[in-house]
């Protein structure tokens, strides 16, 4: 068994060694540690508790046994025309690589490819929030990442930032992308990352480390709509200092496989984290959201609401961990996951996990999965609203609780439109 596992891992490593570019931003000893961890654990399959429903090994064996093809230069004009978000700083990233010339650098900020990031920044932050030995996919990323973006926010950025991720390639490729976002003390930023649909078949293994300094605010929205040829594992690892505020909104509308590993370590008192999620799964999609809120210091709060609608033969997973460490007295931590099954063949696995080591805390969690409320449906129909519209109204209402939290109106419009579209597929 062990040899099997490593066969798949070694095969991928061989392929990645051939296809990955040279990059000097990752310290050699980190790469060493990562390779060692990879060798120990192997690419996860259903036997790995953390990837129980998300068999990466099987996907690799089936879809990415060999990596072939090439990256294609993107038509920047066309991309801009299609995706430009009014009133925002627009940043374009193709196959994980920042298009420096096409992108706008936000005021008083630095925007660079990760390879060009200042050495002292990399030294201070890189791998600190996403250590290689915390997850096999992170280890893989640490060992092979050859692209990514560095965004350094040093003050209050008024306009929102829109980051457009586009895949442009032929064949089937595997990208390891490493991003670093630093929101310095007292700075504020609103970032939306769009994962736009792509024709290219690819596996995107992305790690984004985010530092949110004292009194800093980071509002971070992910809109995942990369299409049914895209497989992705997205690790977002956040580190928060005193009085900081990190909000993550994660919308997932398409993607053959989408695995999100979202962690925030709240490591200063009086900090807040808000995690919102909404996913709609169709066909044979697999969407797996793993979140972890780690309360390390006292007087902090976290709030989490994930909602999902599962259709077709799709599978959705929500695994929400909250750790309240011994020092984290006076913690308020809430978590809720609510799901609607639209078909008998769809599955939702929802699992809250609370581990509390402090004694003076307020924590709660809840999860529910069911069908559309039949009483509400009848009420709407009894007023003359047809079955289909009545269902749609109720699903919109269900999603509204999350969508209404999007701060920027233009982003909210996009999310609403994508939600609408995902109900039709």
């Amino acid at each position, binding site marked *: 068994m062990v040899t099997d596992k490593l066969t798949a891992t070694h095969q991928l490593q061989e392929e990645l060694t051939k296809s990955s570019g040279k990059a000097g931003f990752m310290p050699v000893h980190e790469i060493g540690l990562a390779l060692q961890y990879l060798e120990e654990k192997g690419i996860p399959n259903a036997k790995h508790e953390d990837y129980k429903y998300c068999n990466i090994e099987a996907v690799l064996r089936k879809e990415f046994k060999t990596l072939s093809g090439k990256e294609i230069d993107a038509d920047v004009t066309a991309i801009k025309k299609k995706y430009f978000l009014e009133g925002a700083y627009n940043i374009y990233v193709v196959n994980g690589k920042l298009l420096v010339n096409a992108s706008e650098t936000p005021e008083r900020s630095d925007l660079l490819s990760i390879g060009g990031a200042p050495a002292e920044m990399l030294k201070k932050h890189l791998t600190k929030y996403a250590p290689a030995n915390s997850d096999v996919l992170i280890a893989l990323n640490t060992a092979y990442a050859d692209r990514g973006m560095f965004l350094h926010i040093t003050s209050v950025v008024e306009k929102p930032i829109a980051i457009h991720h586009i895949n442009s390639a032929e064949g089937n490729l595997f990208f390891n992308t490493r991003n670093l976002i630093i929101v310095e003390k007292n700075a504020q930023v609103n970032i939306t990352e769009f994962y736009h649909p792509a024709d290219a078949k690819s596996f995107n293994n992305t790690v984004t480390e985010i530092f949110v300094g004292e009194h800093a605010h980071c509002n971070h929205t992910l809109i995942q709509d990369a299409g049914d040829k895209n497989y992705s594992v997205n690790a977002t690892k956040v580190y928060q200092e005193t009085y900081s505020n990190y909000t993550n909104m994660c919308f997932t509308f398409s993607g053959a496989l989408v695995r999100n590993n979202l962690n925030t370590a709240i490591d200063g008192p009086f900090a807040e984290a808000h995690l919102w999620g909404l996913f709609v799964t169709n066909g044979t999609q697999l969407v797996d959201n793993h979140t972890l809120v780690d309360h390390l210091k006292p007087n902090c709060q976290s709030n989490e609401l994930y909602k999902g609608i599962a259709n077709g033969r799709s599978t959705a997973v929500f695994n929400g961990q909250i750790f309240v460490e011994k020092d984290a007295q006076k913690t308020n931590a809430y978590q809720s996951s609510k799901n609607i099954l639209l078909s008998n063949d769809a599955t939702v696995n929802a699992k809250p996990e609370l581990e509390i080591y402090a004694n003076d805390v307020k924590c709660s969690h809840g999860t529910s999965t069911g069908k559309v*409320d039949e*009483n*509400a449906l*009848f*009420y*709407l*129909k*009894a*007023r*003359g*609203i*047809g*079955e289909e*519209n*009545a269902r749609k*109204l*109720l699903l*919109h*209402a*269900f*999603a*509204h*609780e999350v969508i209404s939290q999007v701060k920027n109106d233009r982003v909210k419009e996009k999310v609403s439109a994508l939600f609408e579209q995902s109900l039709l597929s």
Partner: protein
Amino acid sequence: MLLIKNLKAEINGKEILKGINLEVKAGEVHAIMGPNGSGKSTLSAVLAGREDYDVTDGEVSFNNKDLLELAAEDRAREGLFLAFQYPVEIPGVSNVNFLRTALNEIRAYRKQPAIEAKDFLALIKEKQKLVELDGKLANRSVNEGFSGGEKKRNEIFQMAVLEPKLAILDETDSGLDIDALRIVAAGVNKLKSKDNATIVITHYQRLLDYIVPDFVHILYNGKIVKSGGKELALELEENGYDEIKKKYDTAAV
């Protein structure tokens, strides 16, 4: 307008309606009274098209159409309106959006164009006054956080906007204080015309002081056991349901 013949219905194999006969003509107000468990709410649910009940016998025609053949939404589009005993809270769906969707679906069914936004707003404003519904409630989510009285007023407000041919008020008086009762009744009375009809389902005579019926029917044990004019309600008020129970329990066994 509505003709019910020998209607029998059951839920989970238990027969609740055991042969209802009733005719309602345009311009009439009928009251259906009866003790708890007599089948009052089942009757309204079956007429409105709730699928939990199985109709085992009988027929119902509404405007010369076979009502039982129609889906719930088509019954509403044909002009049937049920004011719910327990209006459902629907978080996230605004009252106004819900009503406009309903009205436009009804209009589309009748091959009428969708209502213009400004005409709809004017209509809403006018009808709100009728049931003294706070304008703020119209913009809130359907029934969410409404008091009992507000929910019932919201039902009558919806009825006013949708202008049904036949309205069935299912225990609209339950849980209402006297002021709310008066407002709801006044709303219903203002909506009355020679072209529409109302069925008032109630346990108590109280509501009938305000909505005066042309006919009163007593429903007991799944059947209409007695019909008469409005004086029948007063009689019931005086004697209670015991006399009815005594008289018909033996017959039922």
